[in-house]
C-alpha cells in the first residue's frame, strides 16, 4: 500500500513537471551583431516591435547581450510559437549613452534585421547587418 502511494506520488510529480514544462518555455540567447566586414555593430534589440529594456537601469539593452525569451505553446499543442527578434543599429556617445537611432524614423548606418527564433535554436544568435546606402 505504502509502495503504491510512493509510486503514485512519483508519477504525479513527473506528470506535473511535464504539464508545467508545456505551459511556457524560457530560453537564453546571446545576441550579437556584426557587419559584412565582421566588425561589431552596437544595436538595440526588439521583440514583437518592443525595444527590450534592462529592468534595473531602464536603459535599452544593447548588443552583445544575453536575453531571456519566453515562448508560448502553440494552441494545437504541437510545440512553441516562434518569437520575432530584431536588431536596430544605434550610435553611442563617449559617455556610452545612445545618441542616435532610437527615435522613430531616425536613420541608421545599418538596415534593421529580424528573425524568428525557436526555443531549441542555438544560444548564439549573430545578426549580420547590411549598410544602409541611403544613410547620410
Amino acid at each position, binding site marked *: 500500500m505504502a509502495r503504491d502511494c510512493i509510486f503514485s506520488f512519483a508519477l504525479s510529480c513527473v506528470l506535473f513537471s511535464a504539464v508545467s514544462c508545456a505551459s511556457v518555455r524560457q530560453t537564453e540567447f546571446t545576441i550579437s551583431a556584426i557587419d*559584412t566586414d565582421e566588425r561589431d555593430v552596437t544595436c538595440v534589440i526588439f521583440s514583437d516591435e518592443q525595444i527590450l529594456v534592462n529592468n534595473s537601469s531602464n536603459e535599452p539593452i544593447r548588443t552583445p547581450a544575453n536575453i531571456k525569451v519566453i515562448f508560448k505553446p502553440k494552441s494545437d499543442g504541437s510545440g512553441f510559437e516562434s518569437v520575432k527578434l530584431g536588431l536596430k543599429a544605434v550610435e553611442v556617445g563617449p559617455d556610452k549613452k545612445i545618441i542616435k537611432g532610437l527615435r522613430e524614423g531616425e536613420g541608421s548606418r545599418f538596415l534593421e534585421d529580424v528573425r524568428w527564433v525557436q526555443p531549441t535554436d542555438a544560444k*548564439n544568435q549573430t545578426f549580420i547587418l547590411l549598410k544602409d546606402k541611403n544613410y547620410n
Partner: protein
Amino acid sequence: MTRIPGHNRAARLFTAAAIGLIALTCGGCAMIRYVDVDSNPTGAVIYVNGERRGTTRDEKVRIQFTTPEQRALIQVLKPRFKPVFQYWMFDEVPEKKIFKLELD
C-alpha cells in the same frame, strides 16, 4: 500459472527505469553532420549557430545537433556582398552546399 506477488510491479518499475535511463543517455548524445560549404565567389566566411567556422572551400563544416528537432543556422558572408543564411534540421543537412552571393 503461478503469479508471484509484487513481481509485475517490480517488472514495470524496472522497465520504466530502463526506458528513463535510455532516454537520458540518448538525450546527451550529440548528433553530428558534416557539410561541404562553398560559395560563389569563394572565400566567404561561414558562421554556424553564431560561431565563426572558417571560410568556404576550407575543410568540411561540422554541425552538432542535440535533438532532431533542433535547427542549425548557417550564415555565409563576404565584404561587399549580401550575407545569406539557411536553417537546416538534422535530416536536411546536405553533403555539399554552394551559396551564391550577390553584390550589395
